[in-house]
């Protein structure tokens, strides 16, 4: 178990390191890194300062080591666009908003998708199942940002029930969270359904019925616990997808999170901030993975005792 988690941790760290290489490399492979690091409007003076600060006169591997050692300490330099702020400070200030949005989206998707997936499997080949399949299929074919805009149009513009954008209070959270979670609902529901179908076919389910257990307990205790493992692995893969999906949704709903910051930074060619965001996202992703791994081990004792 510990070994398993350590291996997974090392893998994530490796991915993080690759990200740092990409971030570092991209700023440099395209000619003079200064061009990538600074907006075109930057003065000669600023260019010189950056060149010295980043040690760009030194060989590439030294530059990378300097970058890495600073990055490990969370130092990505100062923001160009937001003068007087460090890149990392900006990102950390915006992170809670993004986590809030992603967290609610995850909660929505689980609360909806688990029972729906289970019911679809139990009522296989009925009308309920077909409707569920259709919803899942639609969910995977909708662009989230478009769904967000259409929901905004219906519920904020036409019906006037909910505010269009911004952050604060549950009413402003509903639309972005639903838009972000929709795709996940579709995917998780489908995974739960197929995992449940496999489990329902298994011998141990037959044994629980032989024991005289009620169908309710057979399904929600014995089957679900086994079936939950599959969507959970998916979740590990898609925690990152969810985070990046928030970039799109935050921009639709003008949600003041890191996704919005990322786009603003890119439009201003504020590369320090972009670097900080990418690394932070990768780190959050790493943690999400680790949590999922631990949960996974909790759900499946075969892993716990390895």
């Amino acid at each position, binding site marked *: 178990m510990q070994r398993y988690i350590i291996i997974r941790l090392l893998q994530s760290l490796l991915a993080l390191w690759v990200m740092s290489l990409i971030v570092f490399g*991209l700023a440099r492979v*395209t000619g003079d890194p200064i061009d990538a690091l600074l907006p075109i409007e930057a003065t000669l003076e600023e260019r010189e300062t950056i060149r010295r600060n980043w040690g760009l006169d030194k060989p590439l591997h030294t530059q990378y080591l300097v970058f890495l050692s600073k990055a490990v300490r969370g130092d990505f330099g100062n923001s160009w666009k937001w003068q007087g702020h460090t890149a990392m400070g900006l990102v950390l200030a915006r992170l809670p908003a993004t986590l809030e949005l992603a967290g609610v989206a995850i909660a929505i998707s689980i609360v909806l998708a688990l029972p729906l997936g289970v019911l679809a499997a139990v009522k296989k080949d009925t009308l309920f199942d077909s409707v569920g399949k259709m919803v899942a299929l639609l969910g995977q074919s909708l662009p989230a940002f*478009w769904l967000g805009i259409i929901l905004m149009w219906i519920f904020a513009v036409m019906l006037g029930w909910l505010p269009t954008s911004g952050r604060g209070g549950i009413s402003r959270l509903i639309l972005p969270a639903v838009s972000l979670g929709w795709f996940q609902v579709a995917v998780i529901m489908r995974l739960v359904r*197929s995992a449940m*179908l496999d489990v329902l076919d298994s011998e141990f389910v037959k044994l629980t019925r032989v024991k005289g257990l009620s169908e309710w307990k057979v399904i929600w205790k014995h089957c679900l616990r086994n079936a939950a493992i599959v969507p959970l692995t998916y979740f590990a893969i898609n925690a990152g997808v969810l985070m990046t999906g928030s970039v799109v949704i935050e921009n639709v709903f003008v949600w003041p999170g890191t996704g919005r910051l*990322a786009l603003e930074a890119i439009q201003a*060619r504020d590369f320090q901030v972009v670097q900080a965001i990418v690394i932070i996202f990768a780190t959050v992703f790493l943690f999400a993975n680790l949590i999922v791994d631990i949960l996974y081990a909790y759900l499946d004792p075969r892993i716990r005792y390895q």
Partner: protein
Amino acid sequence: MAQVLPESVPRSTPDGIVQETLPSRQFPGIPLFILVFLLVLPGLFAPYLAPHNPIRGSLRARLQPPVWVQGGTITHPLGTDKVGRDILSRIIYGARISLAVSLVAILVSGVIGTALGLMAGYFGGRLDALIMRLVDISLGLPVILLALVFVAAIGASFITVVVVTTVLLWARYARQVRGETLSIRERDFIARARVAGASHFRIMLRYIFPNVINTLTVLATLQIGAVILLESALSFLGAGIPRPTPTWGSMIADGRDLIVVAWWIAMFPGLAIMLTVLSLNLLGDWLRDRLDPKLRNI
């Protein structure tokens, strides 16, 4: 849509009675029809099909609603945007980008992924471990952010979009092809080919590759939808094909700010994306049932 139990696979009941069920999916006629008329024809013949210039509009005709809404005209059946460009024409031209990006990205990532997957599965050992580690890493990368970094560093362009998409997609091909190669490698005809003195390269190309084509077809069909969604998200964020080239994603971005006064600007390109991706998914499901029922969850 992937299901763990494809309808065509026999499920055994107690006593080993095989409960055969035939593939229940019908031929996806409507999806194919939609694909041809929404993606392929407009993508190939946009200049001949579009009624108006997609880039230059007339300010006199700005913000016109679709024809069936009061104030709409037949000249602009789906209405116009804030600078008077015809929505229908822009959707037709937008199909070009979706088609081009998805085909190029699928081709490039397919070739890279298949080659690496074949090598990983065939040679095994350290090469396999290395490639599979790369696959894991690349599947774990936050794609859209990566795209944004690319765009910040080297600017938005067709190439950027293809590179970003490829970084994401090659790994899925590699993983799938490797899995299949592992099992094909053990089969008799491979051993025979080896005894006959065929080179590794030849075995991979002439003996193993033909056996993974079905899988690749299914995977590619299902992936085109994913590429179109990704491309539209990038365009929506301004990180896709630069303006003024019309893309479905950037059209939705235009419509976002005007959703209060002109819902049609965002609505129609979004419907185009949805219908296209939906059709591709249905087609892919059908192909999978036909060609490769053991493919799951991709």
